[in-house]
């Protein structure tokens, strides 16, 4: 027995030593955070994954950087690799001076040649980088950049024709298609795709035919140039960043290191949070109830308005293209139940322009806060609470029946399709399957079709036999121009998720585009666009996503509240001693 006790004691000692050893691995001011999935590649040119934001923000630098205002209520742009804000030469020409002290983590200089090489590679027509549009045509449009990028091997547009030029070793010049503001130019060059790439490694990883590069696929094929450098990348387990001693603005950053765990399971995240091993936590729908009254919990509207696309080409649905049928479906949606009881702690939305839209405008006023956005809400709520009015729904359905020549006792079966892992939509479908027969007095039946292993777009390409398809596509540019959140629903967008196109809607979108430099006018026109959208029911808006976040007491944030387009600024945070 004594031997056993002694053995147990020795074992316990060893275990404690091992726990201590693993906890010692990091530094003093360590920001401990997590990601739900790892970054597939560190090359920002060729990955659309948002998980790349984390490594790029810590170990990448850009021409410009957003930093929090001193009062913590907003943010502004400063030069990062750029020595100062862009200098306007004429209406469409901007010169960007580059810092002489900017360099890579190994000390190699970053200059105009570095930036020109990086932009040329990003736009390279043979490499076909997926993020090319984020430089060519996003907040600003650079002359001939898109044409150069998309010419393939035809070589009709030379690099010299693109509006990106080296003026001297420390100055580059950008030529745009029309006049833009200084803020718009800055915002284009804060995008992760515009971070410079390290030429020796980019070229070392280049394939013989120059169609691909292995830059950023592994740690030794990547070079940091940001405030931190990545020292550990155990794929699907951990990323560790430590301070980059070569970085030129160290005073902005306060952590000694950043420890990013890849934690796929929510339960594990909660346990780490409760043990103080995470400095932030974003609860999911199942966890939120536990923390909803926690004073550390903060919420903010996201860019997403969950909505349902409607098919107007279902050969098995006799009502499919009828506008009154679409209106009936719009008014049959009890958004309060779906947002609160099914999605959980979300906001019902009978409109489509999201809560962040417009926040990056000159005035900082969101569209939804403006008189125009509010007018749409008031109009919707005047005859229905959040667009739910069963009586109106029945009236519109009766009209649709009449217009389509259906006998009043005809029963129409509608099909809602969604991915088998979309839990909230599955519950929504089940709820609507019970609700629709009641609302429409047995005339409408809803059945669910699920798919696995393919996207909604692919499923809809494979069949026309569907009526409703849940969606959550968002457009980041709507933060500056609210009307652009309708971008994917234009006929001109090649991969549109819907198949309903309305000439009046398309024309109004063009009007918004034409007045986008006059913010007040744009908001006014956006109101008209949103009213057409609701009247024609381009699709059915359902829920405005509300994001929730908790931060540990030891984490000192640089902002007072969530700032759309900037976030919480955790990279500029500090650890309380």
């Amino acid at each position, binding site marked *: 027995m004594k031997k056993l006790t002694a053995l147990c004691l020795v074992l316990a000692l*060893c*275990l404690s030593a*091992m*726990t201590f*050893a*693993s906890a010692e*691995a990091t530094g003093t001011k360590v920001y401990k955070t997590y990601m739900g999935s790892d970054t*597939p*590649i560190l*090359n920002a040119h*060729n*990955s*659309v994954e948002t998980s790349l934001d984390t490594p790029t923000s810590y170990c990448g630098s850009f021409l410009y950087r957003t930093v929090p205002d001193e009062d913590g209520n907003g943010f502004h742009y400063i030069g990062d690799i750029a020595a100062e804000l862009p200098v306007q030469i004429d209406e469409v020409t901007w010169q960007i001076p580059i810092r002489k002290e900017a360099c890579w983590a190994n000390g190699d200089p970053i200059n105009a040649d570095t930036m020109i090489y990086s932009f040329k590679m990003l736009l390279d027509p043979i490499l*076909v*980088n*997926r993020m090319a*549009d984020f430089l060519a045509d996003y907040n600003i449009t650079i002359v001939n950049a898109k044409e150069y*990028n*998309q010419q*393939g091997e035809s070589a009709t547009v030379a690099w010299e024709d693109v509006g990106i030029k080296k003026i001297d070793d420390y100055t580059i010049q950008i030529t745009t298609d029309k006049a833009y503001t200084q803020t718009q130019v800055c915002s284009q060059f804060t995008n992760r795709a515009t971070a410079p790439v390290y030429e020796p490694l980019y070229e070392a*990883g280049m394939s013989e035919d120059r*169609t*691909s590069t*292995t*830059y*950023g*696929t592994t740690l030794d094929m990547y070079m940091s140039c940001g405030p931190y450098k990545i020292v*550990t990348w*155990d*794929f*699907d*387990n*951990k990323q560790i960043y430590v301070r980059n001693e070569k970085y030129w603005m160290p005073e902005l950053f306060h952590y000694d290191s950043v420890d990013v*765990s*890849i*934690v*796929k*399971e929510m*339960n*594990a995240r909660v*346990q*780490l949070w*409760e*043990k103080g*091993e995470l400095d932030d936590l974003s609860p999911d729908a199942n966890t939120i109830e536990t923390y909803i009254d926690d004073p550390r919990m903060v919420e903010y509207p996201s860019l997403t308005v969950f909505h349902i696309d409607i098919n107007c080409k279902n050969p098995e649905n006799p009502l499919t293209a009828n506008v009154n049928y679409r209106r009936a479906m719009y008014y049959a949606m009890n958004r309060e139940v779906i947002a609160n009881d099914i999605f959980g702690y979300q906001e019902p939305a009978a409109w489509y322009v999201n809560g962040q839209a417009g926040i990056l405008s000159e005035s900082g006023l969101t569209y939804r806060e403006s008189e125009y956005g509010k007018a749409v809400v008031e109009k919707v709520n005047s005859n229905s609470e959040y667009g739910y009015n069963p009586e109106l729904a029945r009236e519109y359905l009766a009209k649709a029946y009449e217009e389509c020549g259906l006998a009043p006792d005809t029963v129409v079966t509608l099909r809602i399709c969604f991915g088998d892992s979309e839990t909230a939509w599955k519950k929504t479908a089940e709820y609507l399957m019970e609700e629709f027969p009641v609302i429409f007095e047995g005339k409408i039946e809803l059945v669910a079709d699920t798919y696995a*292993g*393919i*996207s909604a*777009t*692919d*499923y809809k*390409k494979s069949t026309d036999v569907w009526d409703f398809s849940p969606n959550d*596509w968002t*457009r*980041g540019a709507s933060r500056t121009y609210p009307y652009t959140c309708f971008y*994917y629903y234009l006929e001109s*967008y*090649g*991969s549109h*998720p819907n198949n309903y196109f309305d000439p009046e809607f398309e024309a109004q979108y063009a009007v918004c585009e034409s007045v986008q430099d006059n913010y007040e006018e744009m908001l006014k026109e956006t109101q008209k666009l949103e009213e057409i959208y609701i009247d024609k029911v381009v699709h059915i808006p359902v829920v405005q996503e509300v994001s929730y976040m908790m931060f540990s007491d030891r984490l000192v944030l640089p902002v007072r509240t969530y700032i759309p387009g900037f976030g919480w600024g955790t990279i500029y945070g500090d650890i309380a001693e």
Partner: protein
Amino acid sequence: MFKYILGRIGAMLLTLFLVMTLSFWIIRLMPMSIFENPEVSPEIQRKLEDRMHLHEPMAVQYYYFIEGIVTRGDFGTSVKIRPGLDVFEILSTRIPATVVLNVFSLLLSIPLGIIFGTWAALKRNKMTDTVISFFIVVFISVPSFVFASVLQYMFTFVWPIFPTLYNAQSPNFAVRLYSMVLPIIALSLNPIASIARYLRGELIETLSSDFMLLARTKGLTNTEATFKHAFRNSLVPIANTIIPMITGIMGGSLVIEKIFSVNGMGGQLIDSILGGDHFLTVALLIFYSAISLFTILVVDISYGIIDPRIRVGGKK
């Protein structure tokens, strides 16, 4: 025997080729766009698809695939999970963690399974047998992720003895192994129960055989008779259970690896299928098929080693 093994290896290679061909065609026939993303312009998506010959007829795509393998030994590169990396390079980075996890799980489950199985058989219909059988049923019927979650909650949160997640960074193997204790236990419970259940059943049947009565009559003690005669006879059927466990150590465990953030093979196949990472999917299917075929071969050969009466083309 040598000819038999050579023949089987030949058949294995042919089967692998068929698996590769079938999986290539099936995966490519899935109605999905690899590069679909609302943020990427349709023009760029089309160009990327053209580069992968996705707009060509299937036979042409298959030709390019086979040409790559034959001329350059190139099974392709990942396009989604780890873009730009060779598919077998991805596998090689993920296999070690899975192998360590599974090897230690086996080292735990085989002896414990044998001990509990034998113990239950020797104490048949007594309280010991009832208790062991109860736990066997529990460990077999309750999914391993339930135990994994419970273990994680109890031993990392309520009693914080172990770390919540796998520590892949430590240069010290003992530290890494220590952070893997809970996933090893969670992964072992089902195999322990499976081995114990098979062995108990086989041993009970063998112990009541006539030759056991003869062995006892010859003067052997109960223990001698059990281990010299009954035990070896009972190993043949359970070889079917244990050997796949040994060869399957590179297979990975989807849920347990996910719960403890073990960056192993678990979930790679599902991720690659859902992500439309065609080349990686085919490579994984080849890899798993090779493991299965090798397992079957080893099981067949092992019969002859465990029980000399079972020999292919044995002495006439």
